[in-house]
């Protein structure tokens, strides 16, 4: 009887632990904190755009869902829809890397200027007319040209 009770308590304890893990694992928002994940790929904004234009399917396999550090020149900075967004030049003037910045980056973004070379870490979501990176953070501060 005593042994049976131990098994029940052990099973219940295990279920509670799994429950707590799942709550912590999944209760956060769908933003990914770039400080806690390692980089999969380092690439320039021009090369990233070129890869998608040459072969979108192949580029998706290489970059979609991956944590990317992308270096490039700032084409534009926008604050539309309450989002802080940095556009980096691609190799042609029609396509850019769109970096949707993590909300805590607002202070750093205000100090940036068009034409400045920067490095950004984010998760690549794919390509429409531009490559799209979400959850982005500036890294190594700015590299002034």
């Amino acid at each position, binding site marked *: 009887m005593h042994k049976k009770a131990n098994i029940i308590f052990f099973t219940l304890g295990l279920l509670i632990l799994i429950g707590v893990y799942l709550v912590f*694992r*999944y*209760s*956060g*928002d*769908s*933003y990914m904190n770039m400080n806690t994940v390692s980089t999969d790929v380092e690439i320039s904004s021009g090369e990233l755009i070129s890869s998608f234009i040459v072969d979108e399917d192949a580029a*998706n396999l290489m970059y*979609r*869902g991956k944590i990317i550090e992308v270096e490039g020149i700032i084409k534009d900075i*926008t604050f*539309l*829809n309450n*989002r802080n*967004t940095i556009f980096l030049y691609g190799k042609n*003037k*029609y396509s*850019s890397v*769109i970096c*949707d910045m993590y909300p805590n980056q607002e202070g750093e973004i205000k100090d940036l200027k068009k034409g400045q070379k920067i490095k950004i870490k984010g998760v690549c*979501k*794919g390509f*429409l*007319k*531009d490559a*799209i990176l*979400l959850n982005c953070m500036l890294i190594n501060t700015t590299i002034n040209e």
Partner: protein
Amino acid sequence: MNKFIVLIFFFINFTDFDAKSDQFITRQGQVSFFSYTSVEDIEAKNNQVLSIIDISKKEIAVSMLMNAFVFKKSLMHEHFNESYIESDLYPKATFGGKIIDFDPSDASMQTRMVKGNLTIHGITKAVEIKTTIEQIDGSYIITGDFEVPVKDFDIKIPPILAPNIAKIISIKFRFEYQHYEK
């Protein structure tokens, strides 16, 4: 879907110069969807939606990455992409259509129907969407909302989660266009 990509490519690259001056683009269109049930409310936003309008042809094209929707909870994001929308197989949703009776010379706010084809999860359906078109400083803002029945797009919800997901999903959009210059 491939035909749509060709259409956008054609739109951007091969129309003549005069036609280009009638084109407007947004790379930061906003699309939100809402699922309301007694069990759970689910909401997600995509702020990187691509849309191009041609005001002389009265045409509109929209394309978005399904995995770029941001949810309040990461588990919702995971279920949406892996189980329902299968964004690895069907990464984009697209819409291409005509703005009916649109008058580009009318600077006042216009309410117009847009008729076209909506493709989600690899399934294409003809839809009609009521939109509001504002002309501000020579550019355009198009907003609207519509509803999509989940079953129309072959999105399978596991029976255990059926009470959590609405049968009809509400969709809102706002596209703030800029003149498209090459």
